[in-house]
């Protein structure tokens, strides 16, 4: 304690000295969030401050919150430097704030956590368990995983989920594409190739989580989408002109129109903080890229956002803010939500996307669900045969 105080004083003196001697060489602007302006000096050294660098280099920055321990990270959201303990508290309580202000849960509900074994869902499961006990939410939590049937990827990540189940002492349910649809992703890729496979996987996963949740009698599903993911989605919906999704994608909770309500408690949590939370808490998570997802378009949006974030960290929250406050013109035609006439799942078409994709797979016409083929829906429903010309368009081109 005494040492820490002395070090702080020393550091402060050094900073003031550095400022006095070399203020001309400091190009960095003072940022309001750091209380004494020391942080700028640490990151903004010019030639004139070199003498002090040797000392500043190893001199720890103290926590802006407790003013006692050494800071371990600079928060992208606020610019504050925090120690481990203060960071854990700030991170967890901000998730609590998101939950309270969005009224995400009601006492007594059963909440399924979509768990992939990756960083986001692992941190989500951990934080929800902590908050449920700390703030007495009165929730029954359980883990819900989807096995897409991807050898070398999902089989490994499910092992992580199984360890999480033990570590957090939560029940776990795994639903597989094979049992729900009769197709694993490995089989699907064999038929459709690597071009549109992510469409199948995305559509099937969304339904699979719902079906798993229904089997378990879950009231709500929450997913690990973080602030970076949501900003990325806003950007992608703008780039694709998908106004219906653009309007929905920033909502912290989706309504209960037919499907089980979903929410995103990590909506305002930066990816950097999620990863550092997992790192400092030594949480067990899985991090391998899916073997089937080069996923170029999202990758570009992601890289673009990360570049912007490096220049100005608030970019992420600013994009979410923009997305939240966009209003769609009255005369923009929005799809009307109905139900799939085959499986009953919510759909804006006569047949839901999953049923069309599945029909395509089972008929050996995998492109049936890729792109817009609504005109064929009535034929599919009436089980009428397709014309030779229609069939040709829907087959995978052999290269």
């Amino acid at each position, binding site marked *: 304690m005494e040492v820490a105080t002395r070090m702080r004083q020393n550091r402060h003196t050094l900073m003031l000295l550095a400022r006095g001697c070399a203020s001309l060489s400091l190009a960095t602007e003072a940022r309001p969030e750091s209380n004494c302006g020391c942080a700028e000096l640490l*990151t903004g050294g010019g030639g004139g401050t070199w003498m002090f660098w040797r000392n500043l*280099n190893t001199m720890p920055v103290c926590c802006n919150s407790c003013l006692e321990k050494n800071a371990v990270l600079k928060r992208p959201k606020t610019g504050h430097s925090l120690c481990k303990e203060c960071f854990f508290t700030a991170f967890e309580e901000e998730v609590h704030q998101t939950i309270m202000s969005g009224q995400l849960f009601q006492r007594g509900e059963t909440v399924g956590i979509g768990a992939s074994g990756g960083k986001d869902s692992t941190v989500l499961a951990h934080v929800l368990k902590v908050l449920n006990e700390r703030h007495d939410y009165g929730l029954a939590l359980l883990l819900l995983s989807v096995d897409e049937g991807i050898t070398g990827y999902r089989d490994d990540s499910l092992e992580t989920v199984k360890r999480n189940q033990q570590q957090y002492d939560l029940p776990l349910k795994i639903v597989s594409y094979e049992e729900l649809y009769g197709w694993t992703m490995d089989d699907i890729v064999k038929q459709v190739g690597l071009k549109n496979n992510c469409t199948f996987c995305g559509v099937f996963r969304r339904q699979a989580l719902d079906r798993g949740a229904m089997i378990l009698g879950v009231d709500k599903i929450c997913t690990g989408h973080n602030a970076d993911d949501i900003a990325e989605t806003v950007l992608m919906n703008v780039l694709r002109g998908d106004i219906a999704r653009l309007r929905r994608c920033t909502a912290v909770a989706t309504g209960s129109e037919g499907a089980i309500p979903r929410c995103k408690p990590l909506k305002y949590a930066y990816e950097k903080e999620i990863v*550092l939370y997992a790192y400092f808490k030594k949480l067990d998570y899985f991090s391998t890229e899916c073997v089937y997802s080069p996923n170029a378009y999202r990758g570009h949006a992601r890289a673009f956002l990360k570049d912007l974030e490096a220049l100005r960290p608030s970019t992420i929250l600013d994009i979410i803010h923009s997305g939240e406050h966009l209003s769609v013109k009255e005369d923009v035609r929005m799809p009307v939500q109905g139900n799939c006439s085959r499986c009953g799942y919510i759909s804006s078409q006569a047949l839901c996307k999953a049923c069309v994709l599945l029909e395509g797979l089972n008929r050996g016409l995998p492109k049936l669900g890729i792109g817009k083929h609504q005109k064929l829906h009535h034929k599919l429903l009436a089980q009428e045969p397709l014309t030779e010309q229609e069939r040709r368009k829907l087959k995978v081109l052999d290269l």
Partner: protein
Amino acid sequence: MAASVSLQLEFSGGAELLFGGVKKHHVTLPFQSDACDIRHLLVWIKQNLLQERPELFIQGDSVRPGILVLINDADWELMGELTYKLQDEDSITFISTLHGG
């Protein structure tokens, strides 16, 4: 003054995939300690350790945005980032945030 700098490097969060799947590397840099900062270290890593797709790790003279760097378990943004002068026995951790969740 040390004749060389020994470092414990760790790659995780998926970044290890660019380094032959090996997470921990104990390395000795052939530089004198006061001539060696993180900027030099990144060049050395690119030339000596990085096994594939360097653009997924290095961008310009820094790490690719989205890769977190910790110096002795503290965020490098607190430590001067590229200008941090390496000390003997420092531990530097690179964590990719770019892999799926």
